[in-house]
């Protein structure tokens, strides 16, 4: 490990609450965790931060035993655990407890029933909930986890449900708590309550490891911060580090991407700022699932050949923006224009027919039908093109699929394979290739074009996107990978809380500046 020197770990003589060494996990060509080392002291709140796909959640799952590591060592309170035989059962026995991002509660059962589920206390063969309820009340009193043991979980708020999850693992004797994005589901006022609970737990000697990408929260709660990027630990920072410093460590351009990055100015300036906008949004407001506004007043204009990058920490409205532009989410107010025509109320099919392409953020959810074969997936979204009097043109579809597979270098090149059998990178190549080969393509909304894609395939996808822009297609590229945006975009808009907080020329967008806008530090 050649990262910065460890700070604040392993001080004092006593054994660390949790220590990891050389933890490695590979998914195909992707190294999710690359010799990760981590040390968490007793009584410490330790935050792991990083972009999407940095390997934070994988690491947590390895510690809790839900994902098997390929290599590495795990010690819990001085005791070695065999990672090869590690499972949630051995993790719980060693005093680890995990709160998943999606709660594992039975909504129709009471709080006390959920807490004891699987470990029901019995007295003379009968279920004894009263004792457990008293223990829950006592735990709640001690750590500020107030919740009525006799209420049904379905009647609780999300914040209360999270408290039930915490009580559940504490009641089972957890000494080290693993929390995956604990604040993602909470309202701002609930975040404060949660942090008070975590402080109280730390004061009682318990350790907390939490994964987050909300930097202002991390600086508010963490005693130590480990920053991950591309599966590696790139920085270990002490409490008191500013969120801007953490942000630049998180997104910092690494050597590899600098090598392949073309200077933005080197791109032929086909983007004509005088031409009419191909794709435009005016004061777009899109509701968020579960209330509030996902997109809160976004406007932009994209001319032929222009590439606008959208940066931002996940969950700041990028997903809603992409879906609304494609007609997959209803718009509350504002307008979407395609070639000057108002398509705000037009169904997706009409937008596609007018020359809009889309690379969805989640290819398995929206980009592909996993059970369909490659030929059928090559057809998906383009079926009107290949239909004559209601009948599918089999011959043309087969030729199109073969060409697409060859041009996009999809492997294995067999049109009869189900898309689900391909690696993520090859699935993505198929989706990007399908969208870019649309006849009459005018604008492409492209979300996370290279998520989970290996380096070589990512380079290919970048090349094809740039070719498309050079040929006059307007591109909107939403990505959490800043190096990618800088490589492709003319301008980079930073999305924060549903708005474009800033729009910077790509050449002038330093990691530091972007990081500050992304975290609202400059707002």
């Amino acid at each position, binding site marked *: 490990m050649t990262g910065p020197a460890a700070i604040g770990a392993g001080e004092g003589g006593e054994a660390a609450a949790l220590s990891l060494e050389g933890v490695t996990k590979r998914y195909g060509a992707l190294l999710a965790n690359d010799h990760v080392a981590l040390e968490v002291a007793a009584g410490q709140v330790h935050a792991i931060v990083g972009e999407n796909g940095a390997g934070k959640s994988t690491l947590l799952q390895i510690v809790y035993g839900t994902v098997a590591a390929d290599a590495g060592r795990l010690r819990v309170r001085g005791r070695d655990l065999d990672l090869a035989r590690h499972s949630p059962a051995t993790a719980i026995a060693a005093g680890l407890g995990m709160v998943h991002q999606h709660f594992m509660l039975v909504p129709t059962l009471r709080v006390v029933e959920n807490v004891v589920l699987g470990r029901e206390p019995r007295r003379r063969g009968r279920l004894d909930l009263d004792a457990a309820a008293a223990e829950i009340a006592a735990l709640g009193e001690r750590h500020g986890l107030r919740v009525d043991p006799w209420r049904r979980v379905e009647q609780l708020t999300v914040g209360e449900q999270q408290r039930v999850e915490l009580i559940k693992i504490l009641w089972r004797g957890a000494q080290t708590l693993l929390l995956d994005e604990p604040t993602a589901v909470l309202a701002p006022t609930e975040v404060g309550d949660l942090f008070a609970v975590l402080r109280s737990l730390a004061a009682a000697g318990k350790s907390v490891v939490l994964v987050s990408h909300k930097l202002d929260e991390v600086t508010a709660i963490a005693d130590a911060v480990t920053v991950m990027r591309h599966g590696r630990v790139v920085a270990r920072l002490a409490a008191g580090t500013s969120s801007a410093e953490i942000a630049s460590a998180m997104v910092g351009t690494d050597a590899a991407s600098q090598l392949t990055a073309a200077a933005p100015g080197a791109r032929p300036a086909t983007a004509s700022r005088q031409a009419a906008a191909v794709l435009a949004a005016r004061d777009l407001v899109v509701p968020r699932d579960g209330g509030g506004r996902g997109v809160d007043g976004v406007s932009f204009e994209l001319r032929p050949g222009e590439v606008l990058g959208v940066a931002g920490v996940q969950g700041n409205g990028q997903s809603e923006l992409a879906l609304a532009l494609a007609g997959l989410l209803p718009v509350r107010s504002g307008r979407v224009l395609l070639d000057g025509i108002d398509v705000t109320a037009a169904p*997706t099919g009409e937008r596609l027919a007018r020359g809009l392409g889309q690379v969805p953020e989640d290819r398995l959810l*929206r980009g592909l039908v996993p*059970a369909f074969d490659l030929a059928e997936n090559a057809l998906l979204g383009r*079926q009107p093109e290949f239909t004559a009097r209601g*009948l599918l043109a089999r011959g043309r579809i087969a030729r199109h699929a073969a060409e697409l597979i060859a041009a996009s270098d999809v492997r294995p090149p067999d049109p009869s394979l189900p898309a689900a059998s391909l690696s993520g990178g090859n699935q993505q190549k198929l989706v990007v290739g399908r969208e870019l080969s649309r006849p009459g393509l005018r604008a492409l909304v492209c979300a996370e074009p290279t998520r989970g894609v290996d380096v070589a395939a990512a380079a290919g996808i970048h090349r094809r996107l740039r070719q498309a822009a050079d040929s006059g297609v307007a591109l909107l590229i939403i990505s959490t990978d800043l190096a990618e945006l800088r490589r492709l975009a003319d301008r980079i808009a930073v999305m924060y809380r549903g708005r474009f907080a800033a729009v910077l020329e790509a050449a002038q967008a330093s990691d530091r500046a972007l990081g500050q806008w992304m975290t609202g530090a400059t707002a």
Partner: protein
Amino acid sequence: MRTRAATSIAIALLIAMAAASLLILAYGQSPGHVYAVLLGHTWGDRYGLGQVLFKSTPLIFTGLAVAVAFQAGLFNIGAEGQLLVGGLAMALVGARCGGLPAPLAIGLCLAAGALAGAALGALPGWLRARFGAHEVINTIMLNFIAQALALWLGRRFFFVEQTVHTPAIADCARLPALGLAGSAASVGFALALLAAIAVHGLMRHTRLGFELRALGQSATAAAAGGVAIGRAIVVAMALSGGLAGLVGAGTVLGYKGYYEEGIASGSGFMGIAVALLGRNRPLWIVPAALLFGTLAHGGLAVNALVPKEIVEVIQAIVILAIAASSSDLQRLAAQGQR
């Protein structure tokens, strides 16, 4: 995939036969003898074969109805009601067709049945698309409504005095018998075969079929691919209801010559089992329906040796064994949990 499905069906059939053999033994008969009688009186003589084809005809239509909906990710439990309104509509049109050329009269009757069934299918489809009301509940409920409606309409307006059936259809609207030793089999069976081939072609070779299958596999990806989801749901349910509405081709047009209270009842629910056994593939529906048709008629033939309920036990075990191995059903269960 395909061979695995075929293997699991073969295993299910073997399990069912083995279990039934035990029952037959317990009843003091020889399983070999009983099976021989069963086959002899179904596929072994012309009349038996005709009856098998006759009993399979409604099952092919209802099996196709369930399969089409299922391929689009929808569960149509309403074939039972759809076939009633379809049969009634056929009989009413058929009774007013006197003097028309036969092809026209038959075509009108079939169209009437399909339209009535399609309307009853489209309604829960629309409720699902518009309000998110689950089609399983609504199609089940509509079965009761259709039953009561058909009976009330019949009694109030259409049934012949003192009976529970409509007047006879015109001769030109009757589907000719297949001429199998006076059995009830008619050209309706051939129409059912044509329907299976047509549905296969629709699902595999048309844009509509492609979009419906995409909807069934991934509604989110279908929406992103420009499929108008609400419309597709209504169309799928209408298609499904229309196929169920054609059941009367075998019973009303091909056999009775009128609509009668309770005609073809049970075929709608049996269609679910047929679709399950046929793995929701239109062309597999035909052999699956023939199997259930064989058991239905064969049960009567072996009644002298063992109670015909033993044959029903075979049917039930086939369904259970298929259901247990069906990935479709597992997928549906997973959807239900979401």
